[in-house]
């Protein structure tokens, strides 16, 4: 389930608006409130949230319930599956997981199917498959499973930059018309798009440190070497002016926080020194 998903599209499920969005529906359908975890939820409570969060939606959850019992989709035991499904929904509610509307719509559909199967059906409707809501659900489950499997197979194919790698060579030696340079507008537009996308998909934040500090971080890092300490004060003073000292100092703190540099002192009260972390002494050995 994706709590960030937006309910924009029309769901193919027959929605019953009068019961769908209302949380009460669970109790009415089930007859009595669910007060404890169902016995067949044999998942450690700590893992439950992660487990439930890993479902891609109500179809995925239903499919799981059916497959776990080794059942054929074509013969879903509606009563039993409905009971289990409701139990999971209740757990999600109890854990205050953001419950997407789709789960409640499915709950309503299951309830409807179950109730219709309990009632005697008019004879003339019996031959009409489409009138049986179970048929529509079965078709949808089959179709979903089909693509779920297809997704796994696509993911298993060798993929560029994950499993296989393009072979390329530098074109530095080639002559030609100069490549287009980026414009500031293009760059800003691209960054705005990334930030927008990041806000939609993930928890990554592009934080707002001063660019002068980040720029100085790069410069300082490039000047430091793992095998050789550099005097801390010299690093600060090499940047002219008071503001330069502040920027350098902040940059050094940031680099320290990021674990990119380490501090040293040959003896107490001697000058504080810095070097890049790591002991790569061989990097510069390639002949020029």
């Amino acid at each position, binding site marked *: 389930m994706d709590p960030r*998903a937006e309910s924009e*599209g029309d769901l*193919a499920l027959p929605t019953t608006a009068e019961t769908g969005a209302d949380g009460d529906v669970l109790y009415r359908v089930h007859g009595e409130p669910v007060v404890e975890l169902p016995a067949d939820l044999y998942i450690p409570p700590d893992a439950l949230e992660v487990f439930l969060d890993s479902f891609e939606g109500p179809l995925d959850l239903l499919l799981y319930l059916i497959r776990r019992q080794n059942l*054929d989709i074509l013969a879903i035991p509606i009563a039993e599956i409905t009971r289990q499904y409701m139990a999971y929904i209740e757990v999600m509610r109890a854990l205050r997981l953001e419950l997407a509307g789709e789960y409640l719509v499915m709950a309503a559909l299951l309830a409807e199917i179950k109730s219709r*199967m309990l009632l005697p059906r008019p004879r003339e409707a019996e031959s009409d498959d489409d009138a049986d809501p179970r048929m529509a659900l079965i078709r949808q489950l089959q179709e*979903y499973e089909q693509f779920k499997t297809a997704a796994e197979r696509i993911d298993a*194919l060798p993929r*560029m930059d994950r499993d296989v790698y393009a072979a390329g060579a530098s074109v530095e030696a080639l002559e030609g018309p100069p490549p287009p340079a980026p414009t500031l507008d293009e760059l800003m537009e691209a960054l705005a798009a990334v930030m927008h996308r990041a806000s939609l*998909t993930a928890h990554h934040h592009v934080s707002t440190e001063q660019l002068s500090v980040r720029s100085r971080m790069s410069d300082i890092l490039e000047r430091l070497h793992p095998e050789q300490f550099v005097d801390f004060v010299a690093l600060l003073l090499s940047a002219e002016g008071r503001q330069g000292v502040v920027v350098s100092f902040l940059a050094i703190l940031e680099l320290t926080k990021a674990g990119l540099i380490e501090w040293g002192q040959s003896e107490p009260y001697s000058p504080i020194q810095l070097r890049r972390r790591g002991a790569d002494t061989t990097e510069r050995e390639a002949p020029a």
Partner: protein
Amino acid sequence: MSEGRTVEAGVEQLGAIELALEAVLFAAAEPVPARDLKAACADLGEVDQALLERALDRLEARYRDRAIELVRSAGGYRFRVRARFSATVQAAQPERPARLSRALLETLAIIAYRQPVTRAEIEAVRGVAVSSGIMRTLQEREWVRVVGHKEVPGRPALYATTRGFLDDLGLARLDELPPLEQIRDLADVASDAGLSLGPSADDEAPAPGTSHRLDFDREPDARD
């Protein structure tokens, strides 16, 4: 004698074409279509499809025992590190890209097999809303693009996979994707399931391995 010289010239031309192709293929970041490969040989005499393929064959043979191979996918030709050296490459650059989410993969699979398809149709199959982030990521990755709009109210965008998607999976054509599992006929459903309420736990699982080739020409909304 004059014939000997023609053959000689032919071999020389073939060698020159082979080198030109090699330069172009290594310089390119993406697979290079045959058309562009021919354009690169403009100064090397008449280069028809047959000659191009001969040169490509020679180039392929040249790297037969090497760590890289010439491969052909949807977008054209490219050199690729042989799969058996993937671990070696990863040892030198161990940062592997993040795994793709199931939501993204399922969305991608539906677009791949059902294209062109609208977002609402994808949502109907998955039973949940598809986030805007996923659609944007798929398009940004250049695996999916909008190929038109469906002539229904709202004119929703129709999505399809790109050549880049096939290239990234090393496929030449869409029908090289793994086949979809076959869905059992709904006529069976009615008879098997009957209308009984009780669980039929002893029913057999659907026979595995029944699969069929995908019909890509099928309209995405044919099922409704």
